[in-house]
C-alpha cells in the first residue's frame, strides 16, 4: 500500500463561495517532488471511518517545499469536501498519500490545448507553471460560473494574457467545442478536466474530427457517487461486509481492514480491479472493457445490487 505522509496546513484561502484552497508543508523532513498533473489522496477521519479523496496538486512543481490543493464544496458531499471546508484550519495536521500522476503532459506534443470546467482548473495550474517554465506552446480554455466556480481567473488573466480564453456561463458565454478543436494544428494534444458532460462532448467532437485517441487526455472528477446499500462476501476469508449508501465498496473494504491496491479512486487507473465470483454489479468505471466486466469490477466506483450479496475473490 502507498506509504502515507504527514503534512501541516500552513495556509487556507477561500477563493470563491464554494472553492477553498489549502497549502500543506511537510510535518517532518521534505515533501517528495511531483510532476504537473499529479494528485494526492487526502485522508479525512470522519468519525469511525476514514474517507480518502483524490485532489490534483496545483502548485508549481518547481517549488518542492509546499503542496497546494483546491476543494470545491460538493452539494452531494459524502463528507469529504465538507470536512475540508468546515473543519480544517491552519496548523492542523493531515495525512496524504504520495503524489502520483495519472494525467501527465505528453512529451511529444507541439501544442497543448487545456480545457477546464469549474474546479477542473486545478491540474492545469501546475501544467501552466510547467509549460511556462519550458517555454512551450499552449492555450487554456476555462469555463466556469462567475463569482461561484471562477477560482484563479484573475491570476490566470494576468499570467496568460490572450492565451486564456474564459467562458462565464452566468454571462451567457459558451465554449464552442467544435470550433475549438477544428482550428488546431497537427501535433496538438488536448487535455480536459471537468464535469463528465464536458469530457464526453470533447471526446465526441475530437472523434468526429478524426483526432487519434492518443492525443486526447482527460481526467474526471474522482469522487465516487453514492448509491444504494449492498452486501459483499469475501470468498477466501468468508468475511461479510455491509456497504452503506454513502461509502464506496473500496472504502468499505478498507474500513474492514481489507487492503486493495489503488491510485485514482475514480474508476480510471485500473489498479483496484478485483475479481468477483457471483452477484450483480453496477459498473461505473472507465477502465474495464465488456469482457473484463464479466468477472472483474473496480471497487473504487462500482457497486453491487441490493438484491443479493456480491461475492468477491478476496
Amino acid at each position, binding site marked *: 500500500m*502507498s506509504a502515507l505522509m504527514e503534512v501541516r496546513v500552513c495556509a487556507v484561502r477561500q477563493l470563491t463561495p464554494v472553492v477553498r484552497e489549502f497549502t500543506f508543508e511537510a510535518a517532518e523532513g521534505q515533501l*517528495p*517532488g511531483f*510532476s504537473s*498533473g499529479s494528485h494526492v489522496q487526502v485522508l479525512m477521519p470522519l468519525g469511525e471511518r476514514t474517507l480518502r479523496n483524490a485532489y490534483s496538486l496545483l502548485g508549481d512543481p518547481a517549488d518542492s517545499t509546499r503542496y497546494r490543493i483546491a476543494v470545491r464544496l460538493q452539494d452531494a458531499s459524502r463528507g469529504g469536501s465538507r470536512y475540508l471546508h468546515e473543519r480544517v484550519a491552519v496548523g492542523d495536521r493531515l495525512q496524504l498519500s504520495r503524489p502520483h500522476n495519472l494525467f501527465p503532459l*505528453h512529451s511529444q506534443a507541439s501544442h497543448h490545448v487545456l480545457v477546464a470546467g469549474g474546479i477542473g482548473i486545478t491540474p492545469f495550474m501546475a501544467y501552466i507553471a510547467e509549460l511556462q517554465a519550458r517555454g512551450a506552446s499552449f492555450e487554456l480554455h476555462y469555463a466556469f460560473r462567475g463569482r461561484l466556480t471562477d477560482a484563479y481567473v484573475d491570476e490566470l488573466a494576468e499570467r496568460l494574457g490572450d492565451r486564456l480564453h474564459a467562458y462565464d456561463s452566468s454571462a451567457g458565454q459558451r465554449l464552442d467545442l467544435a470550433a475549438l478543436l477544428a482550428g488546431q494544428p497537427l501535433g496538438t494534444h488536448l487535455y480536459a478536466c471537468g464535469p463528465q458532460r464536458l469530457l464526453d462532448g470533447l471526446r465526441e467532437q475530437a472523434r468526429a474530427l478524426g483526432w487519434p485517441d492518443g492525443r486526447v487526455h482527460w481526467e474526471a472528477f474522482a469522487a465516487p457517487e453514492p448509491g444504494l446499500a449492498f452486501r459483499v462476501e469475501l470468498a477466501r476469508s468468508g468475511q461479510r461486509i455491509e456497504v452503506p449508501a454513502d461509502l464506496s465498496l473500496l472504502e468499505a473494504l478498507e474500513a474492514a481492514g481489507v487492503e486493495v491496491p489503488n491510485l485514482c479512486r475514480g474508476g480510471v487507473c485500473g489498479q483496484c480491479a478485483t475479481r468477483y465470483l457471483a452477484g450483480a454489479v453496477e459498473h461505473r468505471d472507465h477502465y474495464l472493457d465488456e469482457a473484463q466486466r464479466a468477472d472483474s469490477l473496480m471497487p473504487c466506483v462500482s457497486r453491487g445490487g441490493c438484491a443479493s450479496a456480491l461475492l468477491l475473490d478476496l
Partner: protein
Amino acid sequence: MPVVMKPLETYRDDFTFRNSPQAIARFPFPFPEDSYMYSVNLEPANGGASGSVFEHWFDIDEHYVSEMAERARVLERDPGRCLVMPHMAQAAWDSLEMLMEHLAADYPEHFELQRDGDRWTWINRPLGIEQHFTFGDPATLPCEPLEYITRQAQGDFAVLDQRDGDLFMDAGMVTCPADWSIKFDAGMSFKQWHAPVPLAPQMGVFDRALKYLLNIQVGQPVRRLNWTMTINPRLDTSSETFHEWGHERGLVTPENVARLVHLRVELQFMPRLPRSNALLFGIRTYLISLEELATNPAWACRLHRVLRDLPEVIADYKGLTLYRQTVVDWLSQFDPEVRAA
C-alpha cells in the same frame, strides 16, 4: 559499514578485476530455486540487510573507482553511449538530484551534497571531485547532467519517458550492457526493445511487467534480478563492440573455464523520477568468476542444475550455447547428486 575501495583494476586487456571475499559474500546470486524460467520477478525495493547490495537505492562497492575509469574509457571511444533526447532534459536533472541525494545520504564518507536553493555543491571524494553548480543550468556543469552524474555512479541507467500507456527509451548511459545497445534501442517502446527475448512474450510476462512499471509511484521503487554469462570480467559487452568479445566464447576449455567464465547478474532498480514523471531504470552489473562463485558450494550446485536444465532457446538467447556443456561439466563436481550417481 564503510565501503573500502580497491585500487584500479581493469575490465579489458589484462583483466585484473577480482572480487574480494567480502564482495563474493554479498554477490546477488539470482536463483531462488534449482531451475530458471522467465517470470515477472519484480518486487518492492524496500531496502535490504546492512552491507547487502539491496541496502541502498544505488549500490557502491569496492570496484567503484575501476568501474568509473572503465566508463570514462568507453565514452572516450564512443560518446554515443550516453543519450539524452531533448524532451528528457528535465528527467536528466531529476536523475542527477536523485543520485546525488541518495549517494550523499547513504555514503557520507564518500559523497557530500550541499544545497542552497539552486546553488549546489557536490563532493565526490573517491574521484577527487568538488563541483559548484546551479541546479537546472547545464552550462554550470562540465557536461550534460545525466552524463555528469552517471560518470560517478556504478551501473548503466536508462531513463524512460512514460506516455501513451507505454515506456520509451529516450535517454540513458549504457557502457556495460549485456549484449544490447542504447543507440539501437533509442526511442523504442518497452515491447520493442524486449522483442528479441524468447518465450517471455507468449507467457504474457511483458504485458504484466509493463502494467506494473507504469504504476510505480514516487518513493516506492521496485527491483528485479536478471542474469547472463560473460567471458572474462568484461563490462562492455555491447552490440557495438561484439567484434572484440564475441569470439571469446570459443576460447573456453575445461582447463580455463573456472577463471574465464563469469556469472553476470543485473540488479535492476526502477524508481519514479518525481519531477518529470519519467522512470529511471538502473542496471547495476555484478560479475563473478566460476572459481569465485564456487567458494560457496551451494551456489555452485544450484548453478549446475540451472544451467544443465536451461531450455535451449534461453541458452541461445543468452549466448551460452558454445560453452554451456564445459561449464556444466566443471560445476558438476559441486552437485552431490552427480557425485552420488
